[in-house]
């Protein structure tokens, strides 16, 4: 949340300049992608009236790792949306446009009943997702949340788009250091949990003799039935302590 009480931007150029200055206050002269990403989020937090920001990678209708989160609340979003298999960031990634929900308890409950309930419980009353993409090639989403409900102002939406564009550039800078076809180790290491969920999905597909879509659903159902995190269920399946066939 901003201490300086910024005014909403009225022009794109203005917004960019204010964002650059805000980021510059946090980057400590670091030019590497990850510190830059952290500075961009910190600068955006100064500028926008939101509670927290996360930069998430996505593929196959699911989160693939959180590159950076500004607090412990938004850090939970990946697990919550993957367990629910729904949410604004998944929609934003799939649709390739911002998905803005200022009232998770109201309209949000009707759009994503499972995710909205979980997010509210975690302390998120409003969620705003902006795709990380170049043209129609999307690979993630920038997510902002508010503790209290309320829409983003028009100027804030413009600013958040710029933040997403800047974040996109830094994520691609990470990829630029790689041999094509391989994931940056930073990204590959992000989510051992994610690998376990995919492995468990494959194992359950074999147990059910079904496709991976049905297997994924079965895993999530098991997590919900047992009231445990999806990741824990996945680790149990991979360790062969649990069969879902």
């Amino acid at each position, binding site marked *: 949340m901003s201490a300086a009480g910024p005014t909403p931007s009225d022009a794109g150029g203005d917004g960019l300049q204010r964002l650059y200055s805000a980021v510059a206050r946090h980057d400590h002269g670091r030019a590497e992608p990850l510190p830059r990403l952290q500075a961009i989020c910190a600068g955006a937090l100064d500028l926008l009236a939101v509670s927290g920001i996360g930069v998430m990678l996505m*593929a*196959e209708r699911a989160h693939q790792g959180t590159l950076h989160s500004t607090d412990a609340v938004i850090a939970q979003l990946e697990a919550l949306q993957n367990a629910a298999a729904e949410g604004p960031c998944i929609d934003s990634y799939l649709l390739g446009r911002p998905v803005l929900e200022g009232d998770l308890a109201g309209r949000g409950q009707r759009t994503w009943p499972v995710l909205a309930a979980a997010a509210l419980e975690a302390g998120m009353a409003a969620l705003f997702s902006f795709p990380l993409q*170049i043209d129609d090639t999307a*690979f993630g989403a920038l997510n902002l949340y508010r503790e209290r409900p309320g829409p983003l102002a028009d100027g804030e939406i413009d600013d958040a788009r710029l933040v997403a564009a800047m974040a996109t550039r830094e994520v*691609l800078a990470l*990829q630029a250091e790689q041999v094509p076809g391989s994931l940056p180790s930073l990204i590959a290491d992000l989510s051992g949990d994610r690998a376990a969920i995919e492995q468990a999905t*494959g194992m359950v*597909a074999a147990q059910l003799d079904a496709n*991976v879509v049905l297997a994924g659903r079965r895993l999530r159902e098991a997590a919900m039935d047992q009231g445990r995190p999806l990741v824990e269920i996945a680790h149990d399946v991979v360790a062969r302590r649990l069969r879902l066939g």
Partner: protein
Amino acid sequence: LQLLSSTSESMRTLELFELQQQEGPCVDCHVLGEPVVIEDLEASERWPLFAPRALEQGFRSVYALPLRLRGATIGALNLFRIEPGAAEPSDVRAAQALADMATIGLMQQRAVHEARELAGQLQLALHSRVIIEQAKGLLAERLSCELEEAFQLIRTYARNRNLRLREVAAAALAGTVSAAELAAQQPDGR
């Protein structure tokens, strides 16, 4: 040097640029990183190949201005005049501003192209990881083996048939390559 844009579509004008693969104001400007000005091509012996052809086209004087980026010269902007003599300094300044804008345009084009490529690579790599991990799980379960062994089977199959890991993983998930087939190809048996 490569011609990226020209205001004239005439093949003969384009030829003037082509010719500059060997010699001419563009080449000199690119190499020197400085503006190259020839006020009268008729009086110049600097480019024995280029000058007669330019004169044939009705050009008398030529300017080449560097496209500069952080101290490096990435190209040159060629301006041809049908009159001999020096251009007005204000015209030269305007032309250099034009060259600077052309540089920005070029860099943006390159950046956009590069960003598209990188986005595609990242998207594909993320996607590949998902299906490879899923295929590992599927095979480990079908063959009652460890995940690492399942991965080795995918890798061996991919190597032997010159396929990508993600292609074999996708085939295993789709059932077009069976677990038995993957297990059977192991030379040392299992």
